[in-house]
């Protein structure tokens, strides 16, 4: 579904150019459950942002369903993020001005699609399934971290994306809540066939995924 070919990413710091990702090629197939592992600063998040069309590579090509995305306009990339991709971040990244329910519905507000179903009903259904329905009218900073991350997953799911990228989704949670989140993501993959890519540096999480990729200093290494 997503194919990276010879991806490089450079950052210019001062008058120095630093290469963060070196010639990375990989393929994520439909319905896969992939873990990306590596130490802090190795380039996991950068890679994930590139795969999720949030960032652009300095070199290399990305194919989405065999189509080169480098020619897509900014609006088209926004649409791809909106419809194909869901993000789950370490810091939850909910919008504090909006209630839980509004946060979950927000991607649909930015969509130009006509929905055959009620977005509101679907959002409520997701919240119910994730056990946070009674928090629907709360602002995100009034609920616990575990609850916030479940809201974030509900938001990532509202558009029925093909793939979810989770960047250290348990990093800000205690182990009990972290485990629940990982179980939730596994379920989504197993029961609903959502492709999931989890970035993590925790072994036990990686062990739950079906395929692991290791990054070291910006290079994919076989293990």
């Amino acid at each position: 579904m997503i194919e990276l070919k010879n991806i490089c990413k450079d950052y210019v710091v001062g008058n120095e150019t630093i290469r963060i990702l070196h010639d990375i090629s990989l393929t994520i197939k439909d319905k896969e459950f992939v873990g990306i592992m590596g130490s802090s600063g190795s380039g996991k998040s950068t890679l994930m942002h590139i795969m999720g069309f949030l960032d652009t590579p300095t070199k290399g090509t990305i194919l989405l369903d065999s189509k080169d995305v480098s020619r897509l306009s900014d609006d088209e990339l926004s649409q791809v993020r909106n419809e194909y991709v869901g993000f789950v971040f370490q810091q939850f990244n909910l919008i504090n001005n909006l209630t839980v329910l509004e946060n979950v519905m927000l991607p649909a507000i930015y969509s130009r699609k006509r929905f055959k179903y009620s977005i509101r009903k679907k959002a409520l259904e997701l919240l119910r399934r994730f056990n946070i329905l009674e928090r629907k009218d709360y602002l995100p900073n009034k609920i616990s971290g575990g609850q916030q991350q479940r809201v974030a997953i509900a938001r990532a799911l509202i558009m029925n994306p093909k793939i979810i990228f989770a960047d250290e989704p348990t990093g800000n949670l205690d182990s009990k809540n972290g485990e629940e989140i990982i179980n939730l993501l596994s379920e989504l993959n197993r029961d609903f066939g959502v492709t999931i890519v989890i970035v993590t540096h925790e072994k036990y999480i990686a062990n739950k995924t079906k395929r692991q990729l290791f990054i070291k200093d910006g290079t994919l290494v076989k293990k």
Partner: protein
Amino acid sequence: MNYIIYLIKSSLEDFRRNKVRTFLTSLGILIGVLSVILLVSFGLGLKKYINQQFESLAPNLLRVVPGKIFAGGSFRAGPGSLGTIRFDEKDIQRIKRIKNLDYTIPTLTKTITVRAGRNSELTDFFSSSEDLFSALNIEAEYGEIFAKADVAKKNKIAVLGPKIAEKLFGDSRAAVGNNIKIENQSFKAIGVTKSKGGGGFGGPDFDSYIYIPYKAGYIFDPDKKFIAIIAKVNSEKNIDQAKRDIEEVMLTRYSEDDFSVIKQTDLLSAITSIFSIINLVLVAIAAISLIVGGIGIMNITYATVTERIKEIGIRRAIGARKSDILIQFLAESVILSLFGGIVGLALAWIVVFFVQRVFPAYINIPTIALALGVSSAIGVIFGVFPAKKAADLSPIDAIRYE
């Protein structure tokens, strides 16, 4: 629809949290709109007031005056301006022959000192014929007005406006039958007119005039000349024809630049156009405060954009386009500005409500539309720069921003 509600809702939530800041930001627009609307409503009131003043004059009047003072409803002081020529009895006789004219009245006005006993006042006299009273609907309150025979016999008699009569005699009724001295010439006061009001901006102050038969008035002007001729047309529909006829007659003796025939409405529109210009200048000055207010909004919107870079990144990550971000921040600045505009308008309305007891200022629909339109426009104009900045942030830099 949902989309707009969402955008506005998150802005409103933001404003609710920063109430003081929101209020201070709108204050500039509030003051700007308040002052502009007040000036506009006072301008409207002034126009209305001047119109009211002129309504007290009799309609269907044409004035023949020296010089070319009006061109297309506005003043134009040309080379042959005021006072170069004056009219005489011959002009009166010739104009009288024109059809559809009820009266043709010579007038000579002059500012003079008038005395009665020890009281002395500076005022204007109106040296004219008995027809003046009919043409201007002036009636006697006490005593009587002078008649045709008084003019013919050059009787040194005078009819006083109620204001000047009261100033000279304490009580206007007491004037009747007494002598007054106009520039040391003795005249007998035979009557006091009913009040006609007026005497405000641009309107003549009939209540302060002294009316004398024009042939007696010749002592003040040995050349026996007039400075204006008033012609009353029998019906409104004949005014333009009568105006042309008078011009034709006058052209046989004078050149085009020497005189003007003025309709009442010409005078009115000339005066209102002058006040409109003054008003416009004042409004333009007040509008500067709107620009200052707009800059305030721009500042705050820049600050909120910086505060919410992370939020912008999140929105972009879940699929917001540049245009969505642009509209979001534009909506914020427009709401801020419109809020200031609405409160300013409301305050102006309250002020006008109280002012109306003494002055006919008013706020009309176009003024309301102006206030709302201008404040939204300011929101857009000054919001677009920070909103553009927000929209142009790269999604990845924004979401990584801490």
